[in-house]
């Protein structure tokens, strides 16, 4: 699953609430998180930014997976 030549270097985030939108379904008040993952290739040359935008549900699912991974790591560390 991990690409062998890219390492996660930074994770920047921004938490925002939707106020208005051009979409017909009015989802004002919905919270959203904007993430920006910065990865660097192993030999230090290529820096890539991966911008993502996740809804709260997707973010909780992401946190759930990360916490599961952390628990497994703690067992073996």
């Amino acid at each position, binding site marked *: 699953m991990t690409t062998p030549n890219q390492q996660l270097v930074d994770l*920047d985030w*921004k938490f*925002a*609430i*939707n*106020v*208005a939108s051009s*979409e017909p379904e009015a989802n004002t008040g919905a919270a*959203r998180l904007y993430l920006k993952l910065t990865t660097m290739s192993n030999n230090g040359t290529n820096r890539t930014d991966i911008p993502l935008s996740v809804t709260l549900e997707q973010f909780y699912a992401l946190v759930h997976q990360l916490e599961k991974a952390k628990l497994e790591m703690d067992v073996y560390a």
Partner: protein
Amino acid sequence: MPDHRSYQDPFYGWTTPKAISLCVQTLKECSALPFEVIQKMIALSETQILNEQTSTSMLDILWKIAKKYSISIDQVMLIFNGFVHVLRLALKPPAAFLKPDIFKDDLRDLKFSEQIIGEFHNILFGTKRDQLYLAIQERDRPRLPSLQTFDWNLDVTLTTASLSRCIEPLLLFQFRTSDNRNLTFEVSIKKFNELRYKTALILKEMEDVDGKQALKLLET
């Protein structure tokens, strides 16, 4: 009433295009071809311009015609090509210029038979007239990708990784272009106001251009 030839050039140009003269010649050679087939081929040339059928299926139809009436595919192609040429040349001048009688007279000069002239008249001035002109105008010229949808989202940033309690507006635009590119970007409030100003300026300039006499179409 002076003859239209004195004030208007024929729609096909000053000399008979080679494609059309070959078409007429081949029609004479294949005089055994029944008129319904010719009618069918003229209708086919209309769909060719409107791009309604794929080229392979049209080629199949032409092959079937060639086999059924035992003429070579080259002759069928020459006739079909001539028909498409006539339609394209007829669609070139602006719609108001080419009146039906002038169109028919020009076709008579090209030595088409009266039945064929009637068919062409029905196609050019028939139900699909607007569609044909629209197809030529919109499609058959070099174009850059165009904007298909434009969505925006206005959020209020509450916290970031480096700042807590920063209540700031965040405007996101998403452009979807006709070549399937999805462009998402942020717009600062300053730039957004500049965009509003420039849009208003464009609208005003468009109205000014509309008013200029020199750009109005010449009506016959």
